[in-house]
Structures are given as structure tokens and as C-alpha cells.
């Protein structure tokens, strides 16, 4: 599998998916014009990646300063995929990273973490 790198834009996040290190990043902001279109290649990559993951641990570092409601649904769908993988014994770790003053990011992270049991969902607070 190839590395998938997408540069950040004003309304879409930086995405870095690496099948060699198994450390991945989604960071910045997410409010693209069409979130399904933007995230489709990412979902395709993730699905193939998970199939080939085997025993390795996959770490997703997610740091989104702001995301719109469409993106919130996308994240939910993505976490559902990880949850299913977790149920099959795959090791998935999510680090939900947020700045301590960003109450919305913290709250969304807490809500996501409550919904999932079969992956490790860490809330990582950054203080300046």
C-alpha cells in the first residue's frame, strides 16, 4: 500500500496515512464543500489498510480545531469502521488531541469516546 498524503486547505484537513509506520494523522479544520467526496479516498484507503493490518497496532492522531456537522458524521462512520475492526481483534488507537481552551473539541472527543469500546480512544489535552 502507498502512503496517502493530502495537504491541508482552508476548509479541509491535512491527512497523512502511512502503512509502514502505522502512525496516521488527520489535523486542521474540516468543512469541505462536499465531505463525502473529500473523505471517500480516505475511507477506501483505510478499508484496504485494515484488511492488511494483521497484528500491528494502528495509531490515528486526530487533531481537528473545527469541523462541521457533515464532518462529524464522517468521523462517526470512520470510528464505526475502527470499532468493527476492533471487534475482530485488530488493534486500533485513536488519540483525540485538542487544545485545553477548545471546549467544543473536548466535548466532541468525550462523546465519541463514550460510543466505542473495541478500540483505545484517548483524549489528549494540549496546554499552551
Amino acid at each position: 500500500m502507498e502512503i496517502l498524503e493530502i495537504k491541508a486547505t482552508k476548509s479541509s484537513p491535512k491527512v497523512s496515512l502511512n502503512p509502514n509506520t502505522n502512525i496516521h494523522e488527520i489535523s486542521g479544520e474540516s468543512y469541505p464543500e462536499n465531505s463525502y467526496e473529500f473523505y471517500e479516498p480516505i475511507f477506501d484507503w483505510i478499508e484496504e489498510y485494515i484488511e492488511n493490518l494483521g497484528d500491528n497496532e494502528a495509531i490515528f492522531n486526530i487533531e481537528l480545531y473545527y469541523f462541521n456537522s457533515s464532518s462529524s458524521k464522517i468521523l462517526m462512520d470512520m470510528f464505526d469502521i475502527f470499532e468493527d475492526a476492533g471487534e475482530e481483534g485488530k488493534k486500533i488507537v485513536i488519540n483525540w488531541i485538542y487544545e485545553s481552551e477548545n471546549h467544543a473539541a473536548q466535548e466532541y472527543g468525550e462523546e465519541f469516546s463514550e460510543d466505542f469500546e473495541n478500540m483505545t480512544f484517548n483524549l489528549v489535552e494540549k496546554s499552551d
Partner: protein
Amino acid sequence: MLEQLYKYKSELKKDGIIFSFVGPISQDVVEGIGSVLREKMETEDINSNTSLKVFAIFVEQMQNVINYSVDRVPENNFDSHISFGMIIVGQNEGKYFIIGGNRVSNVQKERIEKKLSILSNMDKQELRAYYREQRKIDPDEYSKGAGLGFIEMAKKSTEPLEYNFEPIDEENSYFTIKTIV
């Protein structure tokens, strides 16, 4: 016409309107106006959580107009990424208000009214729970995004969403919706 514009601008100022845009709206407009709005709020030293809420509501409102306005550019192309609508951002008595406006068909009006009336009776906790519930299921066939925009707006608003449908003709109405932060 020119002589009346200063008076018009002063009326806007009196109503606390910072930003008033009526015209073709696309993602470029969301990004452009969004940027300047954020910068303005930052320079005014507004609490960052408040300015993020205002920005979030602004994006949801704008993207609703882009997705659902019946006025498209070019006309009648429902897949076009440019639509016609209105967005107003202002400040009144220490709070921000964001108003979105666009033409809708009366069929859309019924669907929107149904969604909004469900929300109007919910408190913050109920809205949060409803949002989480709706986010888990697939959006209905009429939704272009995730179908969560109104819930997101209601969650972030300090008061229940205020809205109006102004009849235009038998088929269409002008829909406006106001959020306060």
C-alpha cells in the same frame, strides 16, 4: 439610489449588523467571509469558544443555503455548487446573531418545519442526545450532507432557533432562520 445608500448603511449599523451579504453563495464565499469574520472576532478579543461557535453556526448556515436554496447558478441546476441566498451576522446587546435566508419550495418548507419544531421543544441535554442519535443513522434521502445542520445550530445557540417562512407564491417561500450566540 446612491443618496439612499448611506441611510441604508446606517440602518444596518443601528440593527447591529456587521455583515450583510445577499448574492451568489459558494464554498469560496464561506471561506472568504468566514476568514474575515474570524479575524475580526480575534482582534476584538472575543472569547475563543464564542468566536468558534459563531464561526461554526456561520458555516452551517452558509452550507445549508448552498445545499438547499432553490435559486441556483445556473438556474434549475440542483447539482450546481453555487446558489443564491442571504447571510447576516450582527451583534446585539452583547450577543452575536447569525441569520441565513434562501428561497425554498413549499414541499421543502414542510420538511424543514417538521425538523425545526422537533428541536424547538428540546433543552440543551435533549439536543445533545438527539444529535448523537441522529449522527448514528444514515441521513434521509433529501439531505445533502449529514442532515445534522439544524441540530448543530440549535445546540450551539443560546436561545431556541427563530425562523420564518414568507410566502412568495403557491410553490415557494422565503425561509429565514436566526441563531443567537
